[in-house]
């Protein structure tokens, strides 16, 4: 079989076999941990009340779909914004908004969640750039999510 030569982020993969495995599932409705609106990084105001001095989660768009327990394990107790470093335009606006989180909203921590595909690293680089440009320093945590919903890496940046 010929190896896939395109962008790894666009490679077609089928995880159908996971359906056959017996997994523990929650019965009933799982409560949403979302406590704000909007969430898309272009739409949010970085100085909105729910970002002030809070623990913020910046997740790549695909993360919440890949992780089965995203709300309970990662979103709970945090304010969120989502973005796609590959497809979204206006990266400078993103940079300014993240910087504003640090300096104006005085957020407590920033957790970046990205997928394992190479293009997702752009989101972490954007955050690191904003942190470098910012006068106020904030602890940054990065989690890399595998395509099958596993946490591949978790570290303070």
């Amino acid at each position: 079989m010929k190896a896939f030569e395109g962008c790894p982020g666009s490679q077609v993969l089928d995880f159908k076999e996971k359906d056959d495995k017996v997994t523990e599932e929650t019965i009933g409705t799982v409560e949403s941990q979302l406590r704000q609106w909007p969430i898309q990084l272009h739409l949010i105001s970085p100085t909105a009340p729910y970002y002030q001095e809070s623990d913020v989660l910046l997740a790549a768009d695909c993360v919440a779909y890949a992780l089965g327990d995203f709300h309970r394990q990662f979103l709970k107790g945090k304010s969120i914004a989502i973005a796609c470093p590959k497809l979204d335009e206006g990266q400078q606006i993103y940079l300014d908004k993240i910087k504003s989180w640090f300096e104006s909203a005085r957020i407590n921590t920033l957790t970046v969640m990205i997928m394992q595909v190479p293009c997702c690293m752009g989101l972490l680089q954007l955050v690191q750039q904003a942190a470098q440009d910012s006068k106020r320093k904030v602890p940054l945590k990065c989690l890399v999510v595998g395509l099958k919903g596993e946490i591949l890496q978790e570290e303070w940046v």
Partner: protein
Amino acid sequence: MAAIIGKIDLSHLIAGIKSGSKDSAEFWIDKNLSITQIGELFSMFNETDEQIGYSPTKYEAFVKKLDDKFKSKEV
């Protein structure tokens, strides 16, 4: 006496250091404190640094100078 700074109880860290646990720092950061607590502690350290005028860049340059000096003497 409870070692509490702001909202953060540091008793477990101090106990770890007293017991000589090699992993006390890692244990403290990764397992005992929540993300929120780490942020609060980080912020308190920053505020203290600002108050005393601590400049990391000043010491970074000093450490680099020493590194360069002694690296050149390594066999």
